[in-house]
């Protein structure tokens, strides 16, 4: 076994850290994270130029990465910088487009075409079997009707990849964003999403039976979220450690109080567990154990994430309750990761089904 990242991955990680450092103070993050279109063109282009998207696909698909560890490397760095750019939306789309086998994936890999994956609906709650949007053929044209909900990255997307029922299958379609009624909003932890209303909207069929590729893409997405969470946890642990060593009450650094010392080390142990399960999932992404391992990781991340978010705030005291102090934003993001691409219970159920 070898636990060292490759030098390429280390370079990507360092480059991302440098690039994102400029954008990570609260006030400049606020402008992107809470104002439409919840993305900054300059940052998006810089991410593209340094290869952040190309790292998400295999060489055979025109990228230079695509392994679980490549995805984890990119998203851990995004997490560390609390980057609100909708890279997750692009990752999910790239994963699906690599199964289509045309040139669209190249435009996704350069970031020139911005995609969002529209699969969830108000009643799906992360379950692909409950997708109810319908596609029909009329005069040789395919038309889509239905509502898609909490579509990450939709406010900045030019095209949507849409899952809909079509001739008894779950199929994947490509839709021009300008033809869809879109209601954009910020998410509580920053970044944009939207409700999409399709009303006999013209669409192009990409994949007839999209179940398997969709599951692979969602696995990659869940892994990405786990890695993002690990990046966030590292920052919260370091910030909390520093605060325990600077804040004084009762004439001593609060880190001198054993009540806090034990809780801090418990938190550090759990973070290492979260890191390990994420690495395990990264190592197995795409193989027969891949989906189950991702669920194990996403479950544990949900549990540990809540602990780390709550304890970081608590050990800081009032200051971490403020908007101005970055810990509150890291904690919110970490918490809300359990609301994306399957929560801890759902992933636990998937693990329980294959004991």
């Amino acid at each position, binding site marked *: 076994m070898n636990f060292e990242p490759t030098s390429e991955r280390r370079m990507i990680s360092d480059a991302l850290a440098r690039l994102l450092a400029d954008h990570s103070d609260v006030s400049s993050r606020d402008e992107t994270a809470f104002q439409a279109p919840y993305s900054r063109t300059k940052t998006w282009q810089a991410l593209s130029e340094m290869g952040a998207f190309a790292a998400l696909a295999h060489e055979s698909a025109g990228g230079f990465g695509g392994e679980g560890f490549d995805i984890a490397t990119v998203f851990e760095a995004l997490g560390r910088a609390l980057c609100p750019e909708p890279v997750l939306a692009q990752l999910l789309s790239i994963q699906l487009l690599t199964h289509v086998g045309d040139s669209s994936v190249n435009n996704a890999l350069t970031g020139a075409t911005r995609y969002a994956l529209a699969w969830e609906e108000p009643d799906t709650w992360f379950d692909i079997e409950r997708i109810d949007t319908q596609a029909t053929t009329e005069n040789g044209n395919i038309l889509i009707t239905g509502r898609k909900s909490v579509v990450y990255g939709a406010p900045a997307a030019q095209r949507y990849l849409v899952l809909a029922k079509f001739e008894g299958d779950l199929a994947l379609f490509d839709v021009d964003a300008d033809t869809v009624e879109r209601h954009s909003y910020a998410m509580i932890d920053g970044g944009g999403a939207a409700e999409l209303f399709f009303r006999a909207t013209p669409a192009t069929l990409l994949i007839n039976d999209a179940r398997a590729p969709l599951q692979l893409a969602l696995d990659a997405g869940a892994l990405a979220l786990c890695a993002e969470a690990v990046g966030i946890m590292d920052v919260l642990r370091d910030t909390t450690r520093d605060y325990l060593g600077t804040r004084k009450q009762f004439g001593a650094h609060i880190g001198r109080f054993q009540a806090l010392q034990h809780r801090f080390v418990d938190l550090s142990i759990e973070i290492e567990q979260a890191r390990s399960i994420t690495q395990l999932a990264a190592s197995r992404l795409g193989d027969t154990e891949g989906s189950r391992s991702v669920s194990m990781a996403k479950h544990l991340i949900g549990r540990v994430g809540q602990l780390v978010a709550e304890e970081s705030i608590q050990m800081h005291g009032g200051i971490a309750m403020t908007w101005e102090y970055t810990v*509150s934003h890291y904690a919110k993001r970490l918490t809300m990761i359990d609301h994306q691409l399957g929560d801890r219970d759902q992933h636990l159920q998937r693990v329980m089904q294959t004991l």
Partner: protein
Amino acid sequence: MNFTFSEDERAFEAEVETFLRDKLPPEIAARTHRGEEIGKADTERWQAILSQKGWLAPTWPVEHGGADWDPVKHYLYDAAACRAGAPRTVPFGVNMLGPVLIAFGTPAQQQHYLPRILNGKDWWCQGYSEPGAGSDLASLRTRAEQDGDYYIINGQKTWTTLGQYANNIFCLVRTRASGKPQEGISFVLVDLDTPGVEMQPIKLIEGGHEVNEVFFTDARVPVANRVGEENKGWTIAKYLLGHERTGIAGVGLSTHALTRLKAVARQQTRNGKPLIEDPLFSSKIAEVEIDLAAMTITNLRMLTQSQGSPGPEASMLKIKGTVIHQTLNDLARRALGPAAAPFPAEALAANLALVEDTQARNAARYFNNRKLSIFGGSNEIQRNILSAMTLGNRR
């Protein structure tokens, strides 16, 4: 022992319910249920209604305009008020300053300030904490130096809840620099219109404005505004901590939060079934219901048995009560699944709420209520108090 309510108590509960049905404006109740900020005007409107009924300051002695409720009545009122969506009484005047003035104030101070709390002329806020003095309150540094009949106040207070609506603030200030820190603190009342007093908002984690910073620069405050003796302010602060037990466990709020949690778990579906039928989730609801059932009795038992003598019960009730409330908030957020994500204000404005509007703010409420274990003496400080009381300071 007898855990049924007496006829008297039941009659009282019926009276409360009738009162709430007749007098609580529905639009205010709707906003409370949605978790929206109630704002100054509607808070004052509701408190005036309560005051007219004689229920604004139920724990005050009757001679000062209170109702002298016992803990059971208080509990019955609280539970009914939370169910109905009545706004919480802002505690600073009624529950904090009032009892202090009754115990330590001069007759002149009592006659001037107590009626103004009851009739809504004054909105008080609490100026204890400072940037450098949180848990270690006694280290506070805001100075008051005497100049004839005035104190000249310099320094900064922070975390001042709802200060933006207040016209007055009660402060702990340092009146003597030497000696033990606890022995140089005084309790003074400051009109916020005093020149040299400035307030600035602090935005909280979920985006709301409920706390502020207050800056004092050569603010002149009459010495007559001091409550109690000079340098004896710490005694007052401690008195308040011990007497602030009623309601500290938040049983009424938690009981209502449990009802809301069950409601959202019935509305939401996961894996094609109502969430409340999913054992992974429903077991969590059941667990917190059990905790709360126990807490309801713990609360009434401790408040009834220990009247008068501040003991460990306040800390016990604070710790367990806040943890239960935070657990309920956590589950209410998780019950929304993907629909917890939208920034509620924006999603509501665009009329896109994916869930009932009374549940749309569940995530914001969860984040905001992380404060419960931090303020009012953090849960760590409460544990220190408890362990000192129960173990002594054994080393």
